[in-house]
């Protein structure tokens, strides 16, 4: 009898292990954070809100779940805000899926599964129409600014002065194979290209800001026809690829560069380095806005969503630089706060 029960226990253990083993690969490609309940350790001191602005949020009183999805660029920022929200006493579950801006809007507007959509580009007309079809009117909330980092391997010694926007478009086009095809003094070795996947806001932004000015209508064809092109939604795949390829080049959100400084090197663009000053002054050519989107109806029916967005707007500037991005301008944040107030009817 005892042997039998041992046997059953062993079988159960194996089954459980097998189930875990099976689940792991499926979860691996999509970075998904399910931040669960955490005890409120820090006492919430009452920070005085700026005058005439958002009402105070006390995360201790907020319950209910929040579902968010979207841009992998906004993901680290939203994750940091969610963590802080939980540390200050929020007791529900908040999920943040890192699936790309396009897919995020798909879930927000077409299937209506999410409460908040993270995006590294403004919403498109077609997506607004999809939202309207399920009775949602997206509210745009600016939370920060990203500077796209164009990065190379530390062994790269032919680009000490960075690249120009035009060279960058050439490097990522099917017109050239070797580095020397772009500039005669560069090495005659094939360019290893690393890019975020075609559904990410980062990819859209790069095509629009870098490739289209040079190649116009043909931009996407030129870009995607290039040889030695690796596309991945997982920015860590890109980082590893560039870190392992002397002749590699790639681009992604600044936060991933900040996290991997030393393993990869950032290039200046048109002679401008990505710094808080250059991003603020709009002189860095690859800066772009970061947004979260929600809807008035959702904020009214789910007070936890309104509370989280309020909390996000209140404290985002204290987290944004630690995550690796740049703060949005005060006007943009004020606009977002006004939009929040209008949506919740205060």
């Amino acid at each position, binding site marked *: 009898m005892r042997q039998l029960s041992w046997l059953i226990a062993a079988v159960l253990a194996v089954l459980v292990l097998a189930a875990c083993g099976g689940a792991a690969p499926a979860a691996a490609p999509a970075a998904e954070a399910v931040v669960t309940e955490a005890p409120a350790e820090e006492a919430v001191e009452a920070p005085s809100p700026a005058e005439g602005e958002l009402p105070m949020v006390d995360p201790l009183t907020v319950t209910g779940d929040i579902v968010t999805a979207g841009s992998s660029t906004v993901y680290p920022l939203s994750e940091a805000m969610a963590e802080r929200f939980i540390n200050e006493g929020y007791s529900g579950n908040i999920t943040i899926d890192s699936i790309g801006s396009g897919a995020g809007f798909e879930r927000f507007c077409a299937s209506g599964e999410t409460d908040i959509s993270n995006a590294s580009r403004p919403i498109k007309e077609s997506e607004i129409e999809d939202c309207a079809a399920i009775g949602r009117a997206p509210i745009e909330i600016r939370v920060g600014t990203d500077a796209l980092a164009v990065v190379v391997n530390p062994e790269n010694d032919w680009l000490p002065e960075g690249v120009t926007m035009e060279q960058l478009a050439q490097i990522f086009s099917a017109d050239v194979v070797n580095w020397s095809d772009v500039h005669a003094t560069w090495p005659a070795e094939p360019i290893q290209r690393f890019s975020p996947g075609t559904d990410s806001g980062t990819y859209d932004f790069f095509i629009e800001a870098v490739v289209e000015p040079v190649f116009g209508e043909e931009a996407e064809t030129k870009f995607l*026809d290039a040889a030695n092109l690796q596309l991945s939604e997982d920015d860590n795949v890109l980082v590893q690829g560039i870190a392992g390829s002397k002749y590699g080049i790639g681009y992604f959100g600044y936060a991933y560069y900040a996290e991997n400084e030393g393993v990869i090197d950032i290039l200046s663009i048109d002679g401008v380095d990505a710094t808080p000053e250059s991003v603020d002054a709009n002189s860095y050519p690859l800066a772009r806005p970061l947004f979260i989107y929600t809807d008035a109806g959702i904020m009214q029916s789910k007070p936890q969503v309104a509370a989280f967005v309020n909390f996000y707007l209140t404290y985002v500037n204290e987290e944004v630089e630690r995550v690796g991005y740049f703060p949005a301008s005060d006007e943009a944040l004020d606009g977002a706060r006004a939009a929040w107030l209008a949506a919740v009817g205060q």
Partner: protein
Amino acid sequence: MHREISARSPQLGAPQRLAGAHIDLTRQRRPGEMVVQAFLYLCAAVSIFTTIGIVVVLVNTAVHFFARPEVTFLDFLTGISWQPRINAFGIWPLLLMTLLISFIGMLIALPVGLMIAIYLSEYAPPKVRSALKPILEILAGVPTVVYGYFALTFMTPLLRSLIGADVVQIYNVASAGLVVGILILPLVTSMSEDALRAVPMSLREAAYGVGATKLETSVSIVLPAALSGLAAAVIVAISRAIGETMVVAIAAGAGPRNFASWGDAINNMALVNPFTAGETMTGYMVRISGGDISYNSVDYDSLFAVGLVLFAMTLGLNIVSRRIVRRFREVYE
């Protein structure tokens, strides 16, 4: 290798009635039995319906893909460039890399697996055998994602240090192929070993009787006699290699190896270069569906077309393996 078969226990049945008494066996109802039977039937039905469901969904959505105005079936079957976003719909870049990785994998798994199987079945003392088999089974139980990172963080650096970091790219087909070979090794070994052990002892004894050495017996008598089982093992292993996903998704690369034309592809050694990045059918499916999917896009529909090709390949291989087993099976005794 003789197994003692214990004498059958006397049949336990209903007590015999007097001769002549009418016994109607069909009337005996056993509700418990019927419940069990129904449950087992249901279990069998679930697996069949799941398969049917998968095929229906695959075919339906694949039809949707081919019905798109920008997709032509001919392009799909003959094209050498795959990038659905810009209307390049040739399946060959993905198919070729799938075949190349499976080929490299089989290059490792087949000879090594067969040799291990011969050793285990013909040479190994029982003690060694009982130690080696569980180790192989552990190898089979390692999640494939672990193999994937093994390829990326061990095999790739090893290849780069042996062959040169300039030749071997960080994501490359060779590393993924070699690790796929290691991954299917336990499968090849255990199926081959079963086939070899199924060969009756009397054949071996006959060979020894006419003066054959152990090696001669193994290679010229046992191996041919087990051919059908070995062929089945090989084919199952190939279809496992073709379907392998995590290793190639992590280590092989994340972009299809495209060519401008077939001429370009054939003239160019790049077609079969194992040291550069390539993407298999499964790798493509993982990358596109990995969290990032717009239901209405051509990318999404293309997944099912690729999936259908994959399904057709593994189904075909399984059918072939069944045929081989039936046709070449040597029946003894």
